């Protein structure tokens, strides 16, 4: 019984849960706390069916791109999120070209004035050829 019951959880009603709530709420995006808000902005400025490529500072799969791509897939459901590199870090230029929009987050690019939308740390760009 003692081993089966998680004794730490039994303390939850008697402690200040605020720090735990804060820790859990920020756990997923602890590296890039602004990223979810950025993705919500991208969602507001795109339509279901749109294709979106993601550019982030970590352009290596295991170094953060997988997180950025998966997280974007979750926030941008209904759109098609395209990775611009493979899990083996090979570039996928065809996805960059195929995307209607490029969502750029946390990268020090000079954002063109005709960006569809911009936030403090990123921007949504529409591909010119489309």
């Amino acid at each position, binding site marked *: 019984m003692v081993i089966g019951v998680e004794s730490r959880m039994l303390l939850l009603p008697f402690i200040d849960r605020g720090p735990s709530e804060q820790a859990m709420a920020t756990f997923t995006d602890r590296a890039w706390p602004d990223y979810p808000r950025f993705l919500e902005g991208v969602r507001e400025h795109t339509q279901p069916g749109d294709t979106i490529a993601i550019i982030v500072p970590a352009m290596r799969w295991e170094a953060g791109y997988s997180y950025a791509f998966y997280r974007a897939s979750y926030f941008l*459901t209904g759109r098609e999120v395209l990775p611009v590199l493979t899990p083996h870090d090979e570039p996928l230029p065809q996805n960059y070209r195929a995307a209607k929009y490029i969502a750029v987050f946390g990268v020090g690019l000079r954002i063109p004035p005709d960006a569809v939308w911009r936030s403090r740390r990123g921007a949504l760009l529409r591909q010119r050829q489309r």
Partner: protein
Amino acid sequence: MTATLVAILSLTVFGVPVALALDRRARGPLLVGSAFLYGSGTMYFVLLGLSIAHIRWTLISVTIASLVIFCAAAFIARRQSAEPWREAVRPHLLDLFTIFTIFCYALYATLAKVWEWDFWAIWGLKARTFLEIGGIDWRFLESRWNTFAHPDYPLLVPLNYDFVSLLGGSWNDRWLALLGVASAVALALVARALAARETTPFFAALLTMLVAALGFSRYVGLAEGPLIAFGGAGILFIRAALEWDDDACWRHGALMLGFAANCKNEGVALLVSVTIAVVASSWSSAPARLRKLAPAYVLATPWLILRAAHTLPTDLAQGSAVSRLLARLPHAHQILAYLAEQLSSPWFWVVILTGILIAPAAARRRERFIFLVTAVQLLFYVTVYMATPNNVHWHVLSSWSRLTTHLAVPIAFAVFLMLANSLRGSQDAPHAEDPRPVVPARSDE
């Protein structure tokens, strides 16, 4: 939170006639616990059926389809009559501590939005994607860019999340973890009802407390919780069915295992493990008993056909699994040693093994079905690690602790009852005078 609570209540009400149609004697904890599980499993098939029929999921379409099933089940249930089980579940003071434990787990699971990586990359992602188009998005599942979401995984959990979202009017992942809590509660209620048939209220209450704790998955929002609940309930019902040769327990067990197979691929493996264990533990009557397991396979089949029809890739099967297995066989001892090293809650398993060793031999023989299921399922897991296309160490680290939780409830249930009943002696067991007649004959037989 209201939408999730209403969804849990709706699923339970939806499941009541289904549970009674299968077992008219069900009452109290057994009825409530199994009703939630049947409601959850049946709602999955409602949404799956609507999607296959190209009927968009709306609150109206889902309600109409559910009402048809509800009325049909109620009609079947009303035509049957049977006396309830002789051993009514009697409450015990220890139940208050179990309720408190569940409350604490619910607090933990709802500290924040569901935070697990696998929730927003697999289970929640699929649910949210499907909700966008009001049906299963096969294009999303078939896309080669979305293999990270494991398109081959069964959809019971995402479709349950979609039901909550339909009730709530939009996607909101803040309180979805309560569905996992409800699964754990349902399993505890089923275990309580089954334990009450075999032991005293004190031991049954103590065992329920343990099942509630083990049945709660720390992997919030993932399919582990529902798999533990459906799989655990299925194994416990089949155990009871083998013990008493009770048709209602066979039906419960088979359907619960069928739903487990729609939670995760491990649920399909569990169904095979149970089948092997049923055959091995009752060789002479195996054909008849296997027929009683058939509903489980009927429930598991639609998703297996759909995923084959849509050629949804299974990452474990890519390349040659057999050659990987053969290549790693010489290193099997190293892999086993690593599994032992990475075992989550090792003391729990030490206690379980010790309990098995010190229990009377007759009690061990009585529980051989659960021991066999556990052993075969563990063998499946080890075989997968031997054949994985991934790095073995990474694969073990990222899954082994979760996989062992799938088996904790049934084995703990068996060992606890073995020890509790040997402590008490068999003379005062509720059914000591005759283990069979406590099961009234079905009125339709």
